[in-house]
């Protein structure tokens, strides 16, 4: 017995705890059950949107799925990538953020926190891959239609990123100060949002600034991406816990809201600063005209005289300006060739995805690790698991990026391209057929007499198609036949088609949100903070309902060319009113959910569908505004659900008597 007591009496002398030897079979069983649980959860998250896109495209829009094998592999990679990514966040990035948040204020005081907050905010934004999606949207912008927007998305893309980074940095800083000094969350919203709405309305009435306002509102949703959001949440949780129980704003949430709002303000300010330097919105002819003042401003937009020439050459190729106009405007310029767009080979896509994943995760992880080592001067808790978490995050992001591109985004792009089919006639590739005058005949139709022409394509039977005199050349006897596909819902009229599109995007938004990784991270945090009284599944469901509604409104804006600013005013005012009657913590959850909704699953789908419809409707300035609309409706949904939850909870301490 004495031996036993000695063995346990002196823990220092006792042998270090031996690692438990686990048989190989048990190891395999442990890993299998762990991996199947994580992957199963992601299959559930992704299944809805994949099945929906497949069914909608095949049965409603009646278009076959192209590259089915590649899409299936892509979806598989997305599922595995999401599982790795989320697990990596929970094991590596979030604990690192929380450790910094917990220990930094005690070690360095308020100024240390301030510097760290700015550094982490700026690093997170610069590393954020979702910003690239804004640039992709910029490819649809014409320099003469929206010169300021063109400038910001092309030559000034870096200025845009720096402005957004400054906004996010300031948001994280203010967020941390809010926790330390116990500032309430609601006043911040009352202060910032009305200011943004006012600026938005002001921008709406300036043709030059209007497209930038749409971009600015979208940056709010896009900047807070899958790595930034969980990190900011973890950091906020850490700092808020230091503040203790009595502080009002100590729930740990609310920073994402600021990180979504202040970048919008930063872009507004940048637009104000650059506005005078760019020409007004004008026709392409005016934009490229040789007038010295306009030419100087146009060159500023393009970046250099040579870049302006290239821009003009591209416009000439599109047919926006004629070759004669081109030669008039740029007499000295040679016939500049426009480089065709090339599809990147698979290898380079893999390398790009790997680079993007490393570039997104590593800078943030390095900043956090260095802060803990050099500033806090502590060991990283559970170093082995943290490192594994970072590796998981990078692997997950790599697989997820690659998989999204080949899988869900591809499905979304196919469905998006097919969307205008629902409500509009779509023209297809023209074919030249030989015909003569005798083939033209007039037939009675319900809309009066119409001319038709008999044509025969290849070896198929002759068919009568509507005759367009302009497409017929009597000298050569060649008729240029442009097949027109009827709208899928043509029988019910265009309104039904548009309603179908809006319902389609509603369900698309709903389904894509279920798979959003940063929303899953926020949901887990909220469930933890509320000890499970507000479930992760409830939050995700409410947010998904909101995103669906927001996306429908966003698409309706494009289809009917409605002003974004007024749509936002009409939706943010009820949100502000509901915030007043909502509890502080639910308000923070609701406003934060706005920032996390639009992540790497939703944004590519929105852009694919939005660009297609925008192109069809002839809207200038791309598909901006959908993300902004999709960000505001979840606030309303979560606020309403929070208020109902609050009212229910209040009943638990009151008596209900019905006599």
């Amino acid at each position, binding site marked *: 017995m004495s031996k036993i007591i000695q063995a346990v009496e002196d823990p220092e002398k006792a042998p270090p705890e031996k690692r438990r030897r686990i048989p190989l079979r048990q190891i395999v069983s442990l890993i299998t059950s762990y991996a199947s649980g994580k992957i199963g959860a992601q299959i559930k998250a992704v299944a809805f949107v994949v099945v929906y896109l497949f069914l909608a495209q095949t049965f409603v829009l009646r278009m076959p799925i192209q590259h089915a094998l590649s899409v299936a592999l892509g979806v598989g990679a997305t599922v595995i990538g999401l599982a790795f990514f989320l697990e990596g966040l929970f094991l590596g990035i979030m604990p690192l953020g929380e450790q910094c948040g917990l220990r930094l204020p*005690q070690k360095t005081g308020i100024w240390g926190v301030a510097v760290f907050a700015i550094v982490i905010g700026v690093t997170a934004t610069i590393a954020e891959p979702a910003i690239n999606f804004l640039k992709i949207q910029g490819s649809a912008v014409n320099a003469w239609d929206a010169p300021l927007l063109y400038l910001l998305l092309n030559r000034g893309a870096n200025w845009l990123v720096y402005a957004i980074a400054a906004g996010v940095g300031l948001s994280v800083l203010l967020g941390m100060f809010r926790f330390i000094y116990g500032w309430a969350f609601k006043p911040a919203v009352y202060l910032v949002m009305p200011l943004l709405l006012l600026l938005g309305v002001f921008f709406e009435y300036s043709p030059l600034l209007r497209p930038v306002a749409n971009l600015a509102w979208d940056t709010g949703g896009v900047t807070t991406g899958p790595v930034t959001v969980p990190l900011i949440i973890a950091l906020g949780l850490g700092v808020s816990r*230091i503040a203790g129980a*009595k502080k009002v704003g100590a729930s740990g949430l609310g920073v994402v809201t600021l990180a979504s709002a202040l970048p919008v303000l930063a872009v507004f300010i940048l637009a104000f600063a650059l506005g005078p330097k760019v020409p007004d919105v004008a026709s392409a002819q005016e934009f490229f005209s040789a007038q010295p003042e306009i030419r100087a401003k146009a060159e500023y937009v393009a970046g250099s005289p040579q870049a302006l020439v290239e821009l003009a050459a591209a416009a000439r190729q599109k047919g926006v300006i004629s070759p004669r106009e081109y030669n008039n405007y740029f007499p000295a310029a040679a016939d500049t060739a426009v480089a065709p767009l090339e599809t990147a080979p698979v290898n380079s896509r893999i390398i790009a995805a790997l680079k993007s994943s490393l570039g997104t995760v590593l800078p943030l992880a390095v900043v956090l690790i260095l802060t803990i080592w050099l500033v806090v001067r502590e060991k990283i808790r559970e170093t082995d698991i943290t490192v594994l978490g970072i590796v998981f995050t990078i692997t997950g992001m790599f697989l997820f990026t690659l998989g999204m591109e080949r899988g869900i985004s591809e499905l979304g792009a196919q469905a998006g391209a097919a969307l205008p089919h629902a409500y509009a006639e779509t023209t297809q590739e023209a074919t030249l057929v030989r015909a003569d005058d005798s083939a033209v005949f007039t037939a009675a139709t319900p809309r009066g007499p119409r001319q038709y022409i008999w044509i025969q394509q290849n070896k198929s039977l002759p068919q009568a198609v509507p005759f367009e005199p302009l497409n017929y050349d009597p000298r050569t006897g060649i008729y240029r036949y442009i097949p027109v596909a009827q709208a899928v819902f043509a029988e019910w009229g265009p309104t039904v088609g548009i309603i179908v599109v809006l319902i389609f995007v509603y369900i698309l938004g709903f389904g894509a949100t279920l798979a959003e990784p940063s929303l899953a991270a926020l949901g887990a945090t909220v469930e933890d903070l*509320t000890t499970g009284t507000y479930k992760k599944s409830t939050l995700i469901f409410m947010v998904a309902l909101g995103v669906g509604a927001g996306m429908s409104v966003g698409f309706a804006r494009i289809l009917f060319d409605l002003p974004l600013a007024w749509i936002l005013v009409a939706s943010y005012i009820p949100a502000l009113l509901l915030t007043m009657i909502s509890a502080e913590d639910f308000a923070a959850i609701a406003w934060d959910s706005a920032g996390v909704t639009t992540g790497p699953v939703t944004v590519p789908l929105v852009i694919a569908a939005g660009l297609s419809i925008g192109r069809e409707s002839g809207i200038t300035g791309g598909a901006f505004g959908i993300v902004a609309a999709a960000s505001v409706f979840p606030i309303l949904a979560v606020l309403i659900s929070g208020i109902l939850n609050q009212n229910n*909870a209040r009943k*638990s*301490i009151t*008596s209900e008597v019905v006599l």
Partner: protein
Amino acid sequence: MQRQDDLAKITCVVDDHVLAALNAALQTLEIPEVYLQRAKQVMLVDHARFLGLHTYTTPEENRAALCRFYVPRQFQTGVMRQITEALDLYLPGRGSIYAKEVTLLRRTPLEFNTKLLTELCGEAKPEPTNYDVLACIVQRGAAAAIAAAILEMGLSVPLISFAAGMGGRDRMGLLRITVPVDKEIMYFLAPRHDAELLKGIIERKARLDLPGHGFLYQYHVNALAVNLRVRRGNRTSAATMEQIITALDQLRGSSEWRRLGVTPVKKEIKEIKEYGKEAFSNFSLIIDEGLLTPYVQTALRSGAGGATRMPLIFQSYAKKKDENALASGSKEVCDLVVPQMVSEMLAQNIKDTDFFTRPEAGMIEITSVHGTITYTGKDRVRGQFGGRNLFALLRKTKN
């Protein structure tokens, strides 16, 4: 290190809506250290639809807080009474309050404004224990079913808190990520005569006879106000169901009459080893969040078999702040139940570390535990209380 044996730990479980009133009451009493644990209270809600033709019952979870603080033992009853009145805890659904004797090991002793406490609460001899608290640790997600069963029987209002497990998992290397760390800890406050029945139900519902399914321990407390609101819904009577139950309990002298069709659970499960007759102690190590792990590992090496950690929010209401009081509002508590015979040794081993000397000094709270239940199969290498060697030790001591 200072040892304080003359303290009582008061635990106040309140609905979140009552928390502001509790803060105000604690401020009035200038309580030097308060530790708040986030939790939820579960109750059943009766719904009636279609003019009462369709009725159904659902469980409802409401946010609550488990607030623990220490007072000198002579003020225990007075402080509890003061808080009960300030918070109207006699009303159903608002919360419960109970006290237990405690020993604190700290770097500096806790100081109280005894003059104020005497003035506001008055000194009194502590009341004897009348209730039992059953604390049951289960896997995350398993608590809801157990809570529903207890609520259906109307025995107690369960309080559930999130926790994380420590112990065997930490010796698995990187493979430990495959073992879920998330736990739920349930607290049931029940009259002493109901505790055995309650224990039996929890044992069966939680399947504590199977390995890795959980752990239960029990301790005696003196309760002043107990939340009896197990269900709510529209009522048509002048008295609440809780009032009727309380009146009948008092008339019958026990709650035996409530157990329609329920017979006490017989101890037939062989695998369960209950060391109810042994004396156990609950060691609660409290320190700044993030600093706990090495000390828990020391405790585990010293004989504890498993540990449960929970985040706490710290608040001080003392006017004169203790210089040694920690700046951080974020703490962590780790509960370890160990046989009393090794508790001194465990305390000594932790004292030998820098637990009490580091700038963010920690605190140990020791309370007595009167019964524990868990699976301790023969093939298990390390038992809940320190492995084979400690069981051998216990058996020898018994003989």
